[in-house]
């Protein structure tokens, strides 16, 4: 075995040593199952044959009653103007905010464990993943429309996931075999996006996809002008060696992170007008943040958290940011960690339960009553009107329930 010669390495090994050891329980590895599953995957390599796409119900992805503008963008309420920026969100008039919120479990065709992994701006489409019981089975990906399953999709590759869906029901995601590959699912068909190794993070209603090209964690931010187009690299500023585009709004503003050499990533914007902007670092109590970690963009709003490091601790503060004014507003206490933002500027955050924050008012969304014990709620989407939120529960028993909250 190799020895680590210098004292820093010895200290590190000592620090981590309590974690050493072997798994105590018996192995549950199922080699025969792996071979059976491997044979099935060999037969159904979806990107070459497409035959593994299973539609549970016939669906027309572009159906529905949404009216699209030239940009393919559903009508949304205009953002509310901000009068005062700090320390909490203040708006011109107290908005009504959501009320009478209810929660329901999305149908899973009998699967006990399932996730919601994304949703569209209309609040009608959601994407997720089903977990069959036992191991050695593939996990079908799922599309819901209006709370009902419309497609189940089996992809080859490992650990596939759909990350976003637009108001036309076009979904994007990524899978591994073994390198990461971006794909699109539309009208019952799945195929890889052009450009080779990479990941797709988000799609807007115009069909513009953003993500990254290259190996995981070391890729560069990228934009696909359409789901059939070749990707374009988004420019990295001097000193940055990697990055990722994580979200895009309807105007085409792209939100992501850039990673300077040897550091952690921080927020960056590739704006629709062709300019770029390193997200400024907000201040709290006179101290400027070390980084800003963005979570989502919608209609020129960005939400995320500022990171404050000291010699021995790390703390966070939660913000909403407006591209037009280049200003941050600190979210009120109780807003939770911001996960998504609606076109009307409402913010949904993660606390003990999901919270919708409108101005200075927080509305806690209801817990899913069938859960026993303490659970976390992970939020994946909010509709443009702020009234439909989707996410899932995560509890100590490793079960997950895909959940949809509706408000009036």
């Amino acid at each position: 075995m190799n020895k680590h010669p210098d004292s820093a390495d010895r200290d590190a090994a000592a620090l981590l040593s309590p974690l050493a050891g072997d798994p105590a329980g018996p192995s549950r590895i199922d080699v025969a199952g792996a071979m059976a599953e491997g044979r099935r995957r060999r037969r159904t390599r979806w990107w070459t044959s497409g035959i593994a796409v299973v539609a549970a119900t016939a669906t027309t992805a572009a159906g529905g009653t949404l009216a699209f503008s030239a940009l393919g963008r559903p009508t949304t309420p205009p953002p509310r103007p901000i009068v005062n920026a700090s320390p909490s969100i203040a708006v011109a008039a107290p908005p009504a905010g959501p009320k009478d919120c209810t929660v329901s479990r999305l149908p899973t065709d009998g699967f006990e464990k399932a996730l919601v992994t994304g949703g569209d701006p209309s609040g009608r489409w959601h994407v997720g993943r089903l977990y069959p019981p036992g191991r050695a089975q593939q996990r079908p990906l799922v599309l819901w429309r209006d709370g009902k399953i419309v497609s189940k999709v089996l992809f080859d590759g490992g650990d596939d996931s759909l990350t976003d869906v637009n108001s036309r029901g076009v979904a994007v995601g990524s899978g591994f075999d073994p390198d990461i590959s971006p794909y699109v699912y539309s009208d019952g068909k799945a195929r890889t996006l052009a450009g080779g190794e990479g990941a797709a993070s988000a799609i807007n209603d115009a069909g513009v996809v953003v993500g990254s090209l290259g190996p995981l964690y070391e890729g560069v931010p990228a934009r696909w002008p359409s789901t059939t187009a070749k990707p374009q690299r988004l420019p990295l500023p001097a000193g940055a060696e990697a990055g990722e585009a994580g979200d895009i709004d309807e105007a085409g503003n792209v939100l992501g992170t850039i990673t300077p050499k040897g550091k952690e990533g921080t927020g960056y914007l590739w704006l629709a007008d062709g300019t770029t902007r390193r997200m400024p670092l907000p201040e709290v109590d006179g101290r400027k943040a070390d980084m800003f970690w963005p979570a989502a963009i919608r209609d020129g709003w960005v939400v995320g958290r500022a990171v404050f490091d000291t010699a021995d601790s790390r703390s966070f503060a939660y913000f909403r940011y407006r591209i037009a004014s280049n200003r941050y507003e600190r979210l009120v206490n109780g807003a939770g960690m911001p996960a998504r933002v609606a076109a009307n500027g409402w913010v949904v955050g993660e606390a003990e339960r999901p919270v919708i924050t409108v101005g200075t008012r927080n509305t806690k969304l209801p817990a899913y009553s069938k859960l026993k014990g303490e659970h976390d709620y992970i939020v994946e989407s909010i509709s443009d009107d702020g009234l439909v939120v989707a996410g899932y529960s995560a509890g100590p028993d490793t079960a997950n329930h895909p959940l949809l909250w509706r408000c009036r």
Partner: protein
Amino acid sequence: MANGSDAEYLAYVHGRTTGLRRTAYLLSGDEHHADDLVQETITKLYVRWSRISGVENLDAYVHTMLVRIFLDEKRRGWWKVRLGVPPDRPAPVQAGGDVEERALLRAALSQVPPRQQAVLVLRFLCDQPVADVARVLSCSEGTVKSQTAHGLTALRRILGDRIHSLGGTR
């Protein structure tokens, strides 16, 4: 119905399961999760077996697959920048004893960026040399060293004063 290739696969996998489980357990900190990681690794291995069984260093290849599968699972969490405990919920109360010490350290490690987690585990728990870790992560040795430094800094930051409750370490 094993043909020669299947027999080779079986022999290979049976001989490596213990080592793969151990690495997966050190990466994930959870037995069940570790078994899931190994199951997916050997499934992918079977899919590609006919093409890769003759590669020069198969063990390194398979360990690379395992680490990538682990990092993939972390990736979605990375973009959302999840922490194990939602910020509005109080952090778990510390207590004495080895179990609590492990839990504290594991919780802190899970908040370190995933790639740095992998570097720390592979170097200091799996005792792999820098060059091997670089090969597994497809990066330079310099990057492994810098990721090590950043990972340790992050881990110490996250632990804060609680680092003193970890017996005899700094």
